[in-house]
């Protein structure tokens, strides 16, 4: 790819995720686009973040893109690598500000499913990975951002299995269940950025990506999306400088930000 080519959808995705990261924060990331976004944020607007990984790596020296969350690039010369129990304990004790995770399904209250598709646990249409650290981060972390593709199946009214509690049944139900933090604060898809209406905790459009309309976003959703007051803002797009940084310093080999060919 030539360096001055327009940003591709994955690069735009990585940029939008990166804008959720504030400087001077501790950021818990998985592999793939969230990690690209974290490194991009550190190389642009948030140079003072500390990145934390589920295998326990903390604050690694920047290297290539890891093949696994346990791979050496997630703990490259880390001053400390935490045991798993302590790594989640770090979230509980207030030493993680924001975390990013994917999902197979997310519902109108931001509950996440990575377990199964179908209504019968013993005979599902599809059995997925299970929780991994998804439940732990979503239960404990101060702010959660969910990242994934948006279709009516992936955005159902109710998830088929609650792997991780978002806002549970809305209102105060997350807090009443005993969980910590603000729960999901944003959902990022190919359509737009969504937040949750403060009282009902139902998913609401926050901004739409260029070319998207509310109707398109709604048609990609299995429940009724809430609309914000007034005109829906457009999601800010990356500047050529940011795309240049992404291509030269963050993911120069395009491991996670080049579109699949053939």
């Amino acid at each position, binding site marked *: 790819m030539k360096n001055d080519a327009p940003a591709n959808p994955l690069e735009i995705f990585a940029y939008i995720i990166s804008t959720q990261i504030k400087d001077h924060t501790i950021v818990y990331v998985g592999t793939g686009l969230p990690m690209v976004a974290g490194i991009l944020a550190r190389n642009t607007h948030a140079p003072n973040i500390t990145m934390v990984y589920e295998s326990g790596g903390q604050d690694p020296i920047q290297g290539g893109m890891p*093949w*696994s969350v*346990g791979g050496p690039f997630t703990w*490259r010369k880390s001053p400390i690598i935490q*045991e798993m129990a302590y790594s989640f304990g770090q979230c509980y004790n207030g030493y993680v500000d924001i975390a990013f995770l994917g999902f197979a399904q997310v519902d109108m209250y931001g509950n996440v499913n990575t377990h199964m598709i179908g209504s019968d646990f013993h005979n599902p249409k599809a*059995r997925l990975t299970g929780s991994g650290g998804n*439940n*732990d981060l979503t*239960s404990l972390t101060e702010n959660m951002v969910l990242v994934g593709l948006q279709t009516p199946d992936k955005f159902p009214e109710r998830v088929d299995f609650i792997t991780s509690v978002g806002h549970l049944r809305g209102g105060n139900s997350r807090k009443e269940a005993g969980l910590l933090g603000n729960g999901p604060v944003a959902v990022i898809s190919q359509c737009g950025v969504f937040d949750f209406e403060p009282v009902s905790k139902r998913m609401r459009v926050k901004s739409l990506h260029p070319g998207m309309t509310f109707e398109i976003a709604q048609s990609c959703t299995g429940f009724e999306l809430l609309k914000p007051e007034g005109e829906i803002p457009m999601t800010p797009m990356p500047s050529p400088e940011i795309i240049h940084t992404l291509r030269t310093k963050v993911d120069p080999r395009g491991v996670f930000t080049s579109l699949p060919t053939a």
Partner: protein
Amino acid sequence: MADFDFNKEALGNLKLEDTGILERLIDFEEARKVHLAKERAKKDKRMSLKEAVAEFVQDGDVVLDTGFGYVRTCIQSHFEIMRQGKKNLQMIGAPNTNQSYMINVGCVRYSHNSYTGAEMRGTDRNYIRQFKKGKVTILSEWSHGGVAQGLKAAQLGSPGVLSKQMLGSDIVKYNPYIKVIQNPMRADPDPVAFIPALYPDIVFIHAQAADKFGNAYIYGPTVNDLAGAAASKKVVITAEEIVPEMDMRYNKKGNIIPFFYADAVVELPFGALPGSMPGYYYWPRQWWEKLMRFAGPSDENMKQFIDEWIFGTKDPIEFVEKLGGAKWIIEARRQTKAAEGDNEDIDFTYQEYRVDNDSGIFY
């Protein structure tokens, strides 16, 4: 023996009628008894992997998977367990990626499920198929942190921990070991999940180095292995290298597992293959892609893959030969050292395995 009171809703949801099968994982009295009976003297515990598996793995054991899926995981020990035809094992771990292909040969029959998959490499279609055919029964659902806390509780010397994880989720409805209770120290409503201390029957831990008594050091992600070594009834240490005890005292790097946990010590270079080993070798990445993309989709392909790579090799040395021998070792060592920042940066791009383009190369 203790009289247990499991989470009844979960027993119903999981359709588990005989709770006897659940008891051994949390049987503290039995674990303490086994621990008390272990060899106390510093004895040379070295033996071959074949001997260790034959002597210590019994059909029906709860096996704890170690490392992180395919990072410093004792996969060659799993392969030997499969070769020796052990049956009806229960598998627990965070993650427990490697239970999947062990189900196909009847080795693993029960799952304490936390995460089964290979991250970016794709969904584990084999596990789904075996589950739907009833070849594996899920005994409990966990988050990674829940397993980590259960093992840590054992290491702490506590009957269990109160956790803020898994609350409100369907995981607690499918885990007989977890109960949601009111925090006894709070007057206002404060639900917490009680997670009991977990005592697996056996653990294999692959370390960078061990001495002949079983002191072992591991560096890179330790994950749950320090707790797992303290908790498990039987502990087999496998290691890339056997070093003098003095090395443990003066040259230690990373975390130490003390000798008195160990029942056996196995010198096992390349014991984490086809996983990666910090300081020693990077993954044969295409191997995992072939497992997920070629072997995963059908039982026939999986059988062919298992016959070739697991039953078709007798030890890690033959496995390395199949991967490419010395040429593979040189490349894998260069890759891990570069990734860890101990070598000049190299280009990590490679050709991913594709079913329609099997290069037969496994870097």
